[in-house]
């Protein structure tokens, strides 16, 4: 028979019992950006491989990433990285036991959103050769 007695363990209530709050959106976005960047790094690796093979192949990969569509994917990837980067640092603070107060957590969430946009803009400026 299956594992009938599940033990007298405390069970976490299902996610849907909680009132929807934006820090929850940040939490799932951390996962989505993490998984999404698997695609980004695959594209970048293809570009590196093309560079290692020869000039002709590189021109193809470089033209794909340099196109409008490629640029759009790179900007989305850049934002994904910026978000994951900022929110990751927020998680590291939590792991150190800091910033758990409700107000602090909400504020750090806003800082993550602002930071991800600022880093994306800086990244675009670097790509344009401004810095």
């Amino acid at each position, binding site marked *: 028979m299956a594992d009938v*007695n599940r033990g007298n363990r405390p069970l976490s209530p299902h996610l849907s019992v909680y009132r929807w709050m934006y820090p929850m959106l940040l939490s799932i976005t951390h*996962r989505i950006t993490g*998984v999404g*960047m698997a695609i980004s790094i695959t594209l970048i690796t293809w570009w590196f491989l093309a560079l*290692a093979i020869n000039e002709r192949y590189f021109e193809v990969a470089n033209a794909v990433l340099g196109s409008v569509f490629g640029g759009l994917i790179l900007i989305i990837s850049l934002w994904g990285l910026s978000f994951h980067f900022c929110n990751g640092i927020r998680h590291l603070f939590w792991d150190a036991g800091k910033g758990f107060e409700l107000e602090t957590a909400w504020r750090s969430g806003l800082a993550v959103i602002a930071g991800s946009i600022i880093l994306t803009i800086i990244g675009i400026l670097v790509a344009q050769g401004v810095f």
Partner: protein
Amino acid sequence: MRYQTDRQRVEGLGSAKDGTHEWWQQRLTAVALVPLAILFVVPLARAIGADYDEVLAIYQSPFNAIIAVLFYLTIMAHLRQGLQEVIVDYVHGKATLTTALLANTLFTTLIGVIGVFSIAKIAFGG
């Protein structure tokens, strides 16, 4: 309060004992990636769309090449662990789960090896 299930009691299994290893590994790579991500992305942002010779020169610089290799090694460990966490949460059934975990290891290893090989070949001027 009794935490043990019947099955655990019969099989005599206790805690997994090494459950914190992966958690710790993910934090270590995360911390390492804070500087590495910045140092990897800045030259990359300049390189994408630039001329062939210009891009070669960027990655023939020992600093950029070493950073890129370090970045690839660290990000692939971090990515494998992160994807594994997501897979374990959302993929059910032993066969499907095992297949997904295997595919994850193959994917991240392959991308990591291609990345490191390509950068090494470029840096050594091949």
